């Protein structure tokens, strides 16, 4: 049984609940958008890296950041 008094909050629920919902919807939306952009960029980076010649790809793998991107993406 839902305790409606908790939801109603003496009449202030109409202000309190939307405040929390707005906050969490904005935060969740921002997180999902950022996560999607990161995954896409990692994917594009790997795609472009793979289109390099073997020698260039080996040189790229020696760079710390590129190596980390390749490893972190393969983990996911």
């Amino acid at each position, binding site marked *: 049984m839902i305790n409606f008094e908790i939801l109603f909050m003496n*009449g202030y629920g109409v*202000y309190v609940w939307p405040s929390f919902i707005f906050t969490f919807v904005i935060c969740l939306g921002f*997180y999902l958008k*950022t996560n999607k952009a*990161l995954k896409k960029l990692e994917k594009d*980076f790997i795609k*472009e890296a793979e289109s*390099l010649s073997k020698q260039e790809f080996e040189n790229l793998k020696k760079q*710390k950041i590129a190596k980390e991107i390749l490893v972190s993406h393969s983990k996911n």
Partner: protein
Amino acid sequence: MIKYLNPSYIFNLTGKILSLVKFFIIPIVIVGIIFSLFLSPEDYIQGDAVRIMYVHVPAAWISLLCFGTLSLLCVINFIFKIKSMSLIFKSLAPIGLTFNIIAILTGSLWGQPTWGTWWAWDARITSMLILMFFYIAFILSYKFIKDPLNSSKICTLISLAGLINLVIIKYSVIWWSTLHQPASVNLTGETTIHISMLIPLCVMLLAFLLYSALIFLMKYRIETIRVKKKGLK
């Protein structure tokens, strides 16, 4: 010291911290919500409307903290031309803007039951709105000005002008007669808020800080990969 400012060192570190932040964030958010919505007491004047404080106040604080930090980084970047600084402030600005919007929206929702109005051109609210415009101008500057030197100059100018606005936000409740009450939580002076409300406020602040760290780390990786990707072409 130089090692810690190296983009590859920071990038490597972001990967490790990211997993740590992801592990802690959900339990802390849940605890924060339980405390702020159910366990904390209602205010003797505002009643349950005071619960809006637990999202409004941390959001406003983080918004100010982000702008203050990015202003400092802009100045450092402008003087010393450190590559990783621009990556950091580009990652911070969208977070600050998000929390600024949250603070304005939740402030409006808090204003209606306590002051009887959704919006008032009071000094604190107006200066927070101006901060939002500073954030927008800052983000547009680094996004659309292609020349890095010009972009850096304009970003530094905007951030310095915004810094004056930060001082106005902080002291607006003292300098002018506003609807907002003076600060209840002080790092240097006396904190007048009761411990039963201070704990949920701190937990929510921690949750928001962790969320900011999470987004910051992801944004930092995005900006770094973007730079690396350009180097591939």
